[in-house]
C-alpha cells in the first residue's frame, strides 16, 4: 500500500495511558558530540516520559542514529548530560568538577533498564535463538539455566518464534532474526527500548512482522525511542516525532503536527522526498474503498 499522508491517516495524539508527565524517564540536556571538527550532534534537548513512543526521523547523516546510540552510551557524547531514570549516563563528575568515564559497574547500572535493538540485529551466530536470549539471563542476572529457558520461551512466544527457539540465526529470515534480537532485549525486562533503524536491513516483505511486534510493545506501554524511516509506523504509533537535520532537532511534535501541519521548509522537503520515493501509485482515499 502506498503511503499517503492524507487527512484521513489515523494519528494518535493523546499520550499513552499511565504516562507520567512529571519526571522524564530519559532526559537529555544540551547534548553535543563532535568527531574532530565535525559537530555530529549539537544542543539536543529531549525528554522521554514513561510509556511514551518517540520516533527520530531525518536524512542520513543527520545524527539520529548517533543520538540514539548516545542514549546507551555506545557513542560517547561529549557535551551536556543524559539521564536515564535520574542516573547520569556514562560519565561521573570528580571532586574537581571535571567529568570522567564512569566505571563499568556504574555505566551498567545506568543502562540496566535499557534494551537496544540494532539495524544489523547483532545476534550471536554461534548460539541458537534460545542461546542468544538466555545468555545474559544466565551470565548477568545469574538465573538458573532452566529458569532462563522458561523466560526465554515466554519472550520468544511473544515475538511469535517459540517454534524457532533451537534454530541458529543463519537459518532464520532477517525478520525472524530481528524478532529474536527484540526477544533478547525483552528478556532482561527493560523499561525502555531503543530501536536503531530496526527494519532498514530487511527485505520490504519482512518489515511488517517486525513493526507488528513493535506496535504490540507500544500498546503494552513500553517506553520506546525509535530511529526509523518507516513514516507509516511513526504516524500510527509515535506520541511524538522528532526531526533531526545536521545534528540538531529542527522540528518536533505530534505525528500530525510533524507530518501534516509543518511549515518547516527542510522538513517539508524531507517528507516530500520520502513520498516521491514511496508513492508508486497515486491513490486518493476515495479510490481505496
Amino acid at each position, binding site marked *: 500500500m502506498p503511503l499517503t499522508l492524507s487527512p484521513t491517516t489515523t494519528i494518535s495524539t493523546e499520550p499513552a495511558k499511565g504516562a507520567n508527565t512529571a519526571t522524564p524517564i530519559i532526559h537529555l540536556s544540551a547534548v553535543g558530540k563532535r568527531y574532530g571538527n565535525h559537530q555530529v550532534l549539537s544542543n539536543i534537548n529531549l525528554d522521554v516520559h514513561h510509556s511514551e513512543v518517540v520516533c527520530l526521523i531525518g536524512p542520513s547523516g543527520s545524527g539520529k542514529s548517533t543520538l540514539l546510540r548516545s542514549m546507551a552510551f*555506545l557513542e560517547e557524547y561529549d557535551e551536556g548530560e543524559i539521564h536515564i531514570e535520574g542516573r547520569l549516563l556514562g560519565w561521573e563528575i570528580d571532586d574537581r568538577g571535571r567529568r570522567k568515564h564512569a566505571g563499568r559497574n556504574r555505566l*551498567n547500572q545506568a543502562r540496566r533498564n535499557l534494551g537496544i535493538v540494532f539495524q544489523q540485529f547483532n545476534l550471536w551466530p554461534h548460539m541458537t535463538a534460545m542461546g542468544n536470549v538466555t545468555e545474559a539471563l544466565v*551470565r*548477568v542476572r545469574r538465573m538458573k539455566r532452566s529458569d532462563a529457558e522458561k523466560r526465554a520461551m515466554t519472550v520468544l512466544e511473544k515475538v511469535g518464534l517459540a517454534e524457532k527457539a533451537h534454530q541458529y540465526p*543463519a*537459518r532464520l529470515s532477517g525478520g525472524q532474526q530481528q524478532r529474536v534480537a527484540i526477544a533478547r532485549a525483552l528478556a532482561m525486562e527493560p523499561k525502555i527500548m531503543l530501536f536503531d533503524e530496526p527494519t532498514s536491513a530487511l527485505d520490504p516483505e519482512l518489515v511488517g512482522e517486525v513493526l507488528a511486534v513493535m506496535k504490540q510493545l507500544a500498546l503494552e506501554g513500553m517506553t520506546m525511542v525509535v530511529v526509523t524511516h518507516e513514516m507509516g509506523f511513526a504516524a500510527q504509533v509515535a506520541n511524538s516525532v522528532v526531526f533531526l537535520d545536521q545534528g540538531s532537532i529542527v522540528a518536533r511534535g505530534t505525528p500530525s503536527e510533524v507530518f501534516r501541519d509543518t511549515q518547516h521548509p527542510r522538513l517539508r522537503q524531507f517528507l516530500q522526498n520520502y513520498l516521491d520515493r514511496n508513492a508508486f501509485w497515486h491513490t486518493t482515499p476515495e479510490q481505496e474503498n
Partner: protein
Amino acid sequence: MTFDLTIITANAGAIWNAFLVTIYTWLAGSALGIVAGLVIAALMLFGGRPLQLLLRGVIELVRGTPFLVILFLVYYGGPAFGVRLGAVTAGVLCIAGYSSVYFAEIFRSGFAAVPRGQLEAGECLGLSRFDLLWRVQLPQMLVLILPAIVNMLTILCKETAVLSIITVPELTAVLTGIGTRTFTFIETLLVLCIAYLLLIEITSRAGRWLERRVGTYLQR
C-alpha cells in the same frame, strides 16, 4: 645403489623414541605458543596504548629473526645471562616463543573479524569484557582462524627438525645420525620424510574434521 631397510628395523627403538621427542617438542611448544599468543593478542586488545606498542615491537622483533638464530641465542647465549637450559627444554621454549607471535597475529585477526555490533549488543545487556571474550569472540574466531592455526601447526612440525642442531634427540637428529654413521642416507631420509608426512597428514585431516564440527552453525 643398495637399499637395505634392515638398518631401520635394527634401530627401530631409537627411531621410535626420536619420533616421540619430535611429537613432544612440537606439541608442547605449539600449545605454549598458542596460549602465549592468545595472551599477547588479548593484551594488545585491552591493554592500552603503551602495552600495545611494546608488544607490537616484540612481535616485529621475533618475526624478523630466523628460528635458528633464536635457538642459538637461547641455548648458547642463555648461559651468558645465567639461563642454562637442557636442549629439549630450550627447544620447546624456542618453538613456543617463536610461534607465539604468529599465533598472536592470527588471534588478532580473529578478534577483528567478529563484528563490533555483536559486542555492543552484549555490552548493553550487561555482559562483562571477559564474558564477551569467552562467550562471544572466542567461539566464533576459533572457527575463522582454525585453518590458519592448522597451517601454523604443520609449519612448526617441520621446524622441530632445526632442533637437531642443538642436539635435541628428535627424528632428524637421530635418523641423519644413523645415516652418516652407516652411509644409508636413502633409507633413513625416506623414513624421515614419511614420518613428517604422516604427522602433517594427520594434522590436516584433524583440522578439516574439526572445521566441519565447529562450523555447523554457519550452515544454512
